[in-house]
């Protein structure tokens, strides 16, 4: 027994060592990476930490400046922040654990080896917890530093809170791993799916009712601030439920900051005992459940396979497989498109649509932006001032363009590289590579235009902008959409990576980083030029030459940034050797 357990521990250590060696060598290979990429990553990391610290520090100082209320507000914000971060951490652990346990080649490699199932699970649990939680540490570190500074804590606050948070991470990691195993085990059960849907619907309805915006007039804010605040705090009381792990962390951190070391130690011990209990359960009793779930995931055709309607749909689809689908019919209806270009567009749409990770990220990015824009209506009273309306409308254009830049870099830039080993298929076809890329450019621009112009119109409508202003913003969005797509397609062709199938890896090379940086600089410059030369931004005084000059500079900049790489890319393709 003793011998077996030593050997299992030894195997876990062996797995940890091999993966540490792999990680170390990956880090060393950063030296071979382009300096621009390394510099950009370092700059973003340092910039985020500095900016987050600054904003937290200023925010905490501001909240603390309300006499009599500051302490209550800061305390509640801490409880709320940790509650939301814990939920995010739980979800992130669940997703990472699912991928790591059931969609990972290393797991499949280890399963036929004489490594105990529990040991495989333990290693994957550790790996997932680290992958899912490092960002949490990165998020809370500047906040805790700012909190410590504003509360003028003693030196031991920092190591003590770090230790508390490291222990706290075990609880969502255990919950996430268990949830991933359960999800894998029962995902194809109809009752499980119905239960999940009902729970999600109930949470959405409950959230919508609970967080329903309450109108507050300026007069109320002036005269009845305590009542308004009390109403607001009432909605956040759930974060004070004493059985929540986030409550123990937030309470422990605050007690430590106030030098109430006895209370702080109590919360730390509650946290440690729970982490030990759940951690031990997960690390000792999950091996068989994990193996059963892994076998089911490997054997599963489709999660919806048990539904009659799905089976009928599949059968019908199999029969209709040789017929033209809706995408064929839609693209085929465009009269000026030749069949070769139609085929290319249909292929690109299908490949994009069938790769859930591709469009899933786009939906999340633009979905969040749409939710923000839709919620602008609740700030109607605060946005009556023309100045703020002006600022917010340009900020919306800025946010929309930044989102678009992320999407073009992530999805449009790798388009040529993704043809990869298959480039000969389109390369040998009589259409020619330059036309292939022009078609890709047209498709990505057309799709992006629907989204960006739609969002700008929605934003203008929510802000109740007059037509001229809306048209100005809409046209600016159109120009930026063309430019960002041209830039991404052009650079993607100039810096192809034809060996790689994974778009994330293609994007993380020199060209992808350059594309992101160039897009970001172009957007910042464009918004600055547009806002500075806006006919509505100078207190109603319109200097036509200034306005037209600004627009001309914006158009010129867009042409240079978009057309130059696009033309260079097309020239390169004309002589590209397959």
């Amino acid at each position, binding site marked *: 027994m003793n011998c077996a357990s030593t050997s299992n521990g030894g195997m876990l250590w*062996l797995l940890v060592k091999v993966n540490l*060696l*792999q990680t170390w060598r*990956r880090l060393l290979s950063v030296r071979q990476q382009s300096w621009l990429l390394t510099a950009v990553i370092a700059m973003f990391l340092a910039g985020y930490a500095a900016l987050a610290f600054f904003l937290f520090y200023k925010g905490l100082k501001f909240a603390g400046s309300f006499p009599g209320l500051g302490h209550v507000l800061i305390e509640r914000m801490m409880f709320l922040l940790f509650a939301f971060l814990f939920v995010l951490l739980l979800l992130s652990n669940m997703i990472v654990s699912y991928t790591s346990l059931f969609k990972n080649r290393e797991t499949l490699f280890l399963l*036929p080896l*004489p490594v105990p199932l529990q040991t495989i699970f333990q290693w994957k649990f550790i790996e997932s917890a680290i992958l899912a939680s490092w960002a949490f540490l990165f998020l809370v570190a500047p906040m805790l530093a700012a909190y410590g500074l504003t509360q003028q804590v003693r030196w031991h606050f920092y190591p003590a809170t770090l230790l508390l948070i490291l222990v706290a991470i075990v609880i969502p990691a255990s919950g996430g791993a268990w949830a991933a195993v359960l999800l894998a085990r029962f995902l194809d059960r109809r009752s499980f799916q119905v239960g999940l849907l009902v729970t999600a619907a109930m949470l959405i309805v409950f959230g919508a009712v609970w967080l329903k915006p309450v109108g507050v007039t300026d007069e109320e804010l002036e005269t009845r601030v305590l009542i308004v605040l009390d109403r607001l705090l009432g909605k956040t009381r759930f974060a004070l439920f004493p059985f929540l792990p986030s409550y123990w962390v937030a309470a422990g951190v605050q007690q430590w900051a106030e030098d109430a070391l006895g209370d702080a130690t109590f919360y730390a011990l509650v946290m440690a005992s729970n982490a030990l209990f759940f951690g031990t359960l997960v690390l000792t009793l999950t091996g068989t459940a994990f*193996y059963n779930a892994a076998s089911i995931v490997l054997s599963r055709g489709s999660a919806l396979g048990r539904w009659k309607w799905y089976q009928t749909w599949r059968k019908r689809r199999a029969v209709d497989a040789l017929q033209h689908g809706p995408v064929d019919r839609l693209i085929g209806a465009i009269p000026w498109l030749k069949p070769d270009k139609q085929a290319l567009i249909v292929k690109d749409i299908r490949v994009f649509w069938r790769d859930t990770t591709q469009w899933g990220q786009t939906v999340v990015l633009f979905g969040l932006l749409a939710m923000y824009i839709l919620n602008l209506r609740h700030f109607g009273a605060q946005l009556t001032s023309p100045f703020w309306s002006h600022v917010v409308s340009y900020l919306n254009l800025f946010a929309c363009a930044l989102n678009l830049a992320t999407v073009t870099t992530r999805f449009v830039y790798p388009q040529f590289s993704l043809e990869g080993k298959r480039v000969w298929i389109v390369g040998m076809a009589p259409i020619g590579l330059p036309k292939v890329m022009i078609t890709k450019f047209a498709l990505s621009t057309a799709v992006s235009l629907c989204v960006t112009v739609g969002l700008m119109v929605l934003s203008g409508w929510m802000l109740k902008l007059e037509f001229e202003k809306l048209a100005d913003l809409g046209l600016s969005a159109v120009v930026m959409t063309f430019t960002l797509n041209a830039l991404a397609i052009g650079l993607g062709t100039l810096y192809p990576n034809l060996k790689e199938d994974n778009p994330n890896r293609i994007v993380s090379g020199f060209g992808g980083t350059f594309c992101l940086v160039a897009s970001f600089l172009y957007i910042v410059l464009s918004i600055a030029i547009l806002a500075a030369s806006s006919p509505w931004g100078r207190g109603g005084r319109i200097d036509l030459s200034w306005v037209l000059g600004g627009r001309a500079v914006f158009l010129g900049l867009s042409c240079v940034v978009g057309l130059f790489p696009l033309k260079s890319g097309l020239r390169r393709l004309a002589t590209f050797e397959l």
Partner: protein
Amino acid sequence: MIELVNLVKKFGGLVAVNNVTLTVPRGEFFALLGPNAAGKTTTIKMIAGLMKPTSGSVRVSGYDVVQQPLEARRQLAYVPDFPFLYDKLTPWEFFRFIGRLFLMDSARIERVAREFSARFSLDPYLGNPIESLSHGTRQKVAIVSALLHEPSVFVLDEPMVGIDPQHARVLKDILKERSRAGTTVFISTHQLSVAEEMADRIGIMHEGRLIAVGTRDELRRQSGTDGALEQTFLALTAQESAADMQGVAQKPAV
């Protein structure tokens, strides 16, 4: 020894492996043939313990792969068609890692790894990162790592893919030597020449069922052909397809 008893694997409504019973004794070289989607890889995955059977059982050297997984895996080596390797390790580091998972001591790992590396001409690559190796070389690294612990059951899925003719010969020689030394070798392949040249017995799978098992001569007799294995294989699978069609036609309408 490998024992498959009434083995069934269902993927939803699809029966991927349908009531397969087969015993491959110690020291036998067994080749599993079949058209695409016949159920060969699913059968191999169940032998390797990657998937649990829907019903029936798999025993490796007398150990049930579901009930006694650790004991079964200690006897087994499995090389899939696209093996996973740690990209940032060198082949030598990878061999040491695998050897230690099988609780081998360093001297033995070194001795066996040196022997097989030399036979597969891997010596120039032993210190290079695996990520820099060609597909064929990676396949050779996977095969050497599987041979390290001198398994009593060796299961390979399409082992010759990507390997040059010279080293394909080396692999065939090694597999034959191992089988003569008592290792049960179970390979799935589409290369009929490999099965014809190497296998003591051949099994043919079709639509999840094991439709024929035997030596080359037994299969020839069963198919009614007397040419190469290719003709035997085509005749047997065609007969089976015809029987299936007839079965469908004779089924009373519901």
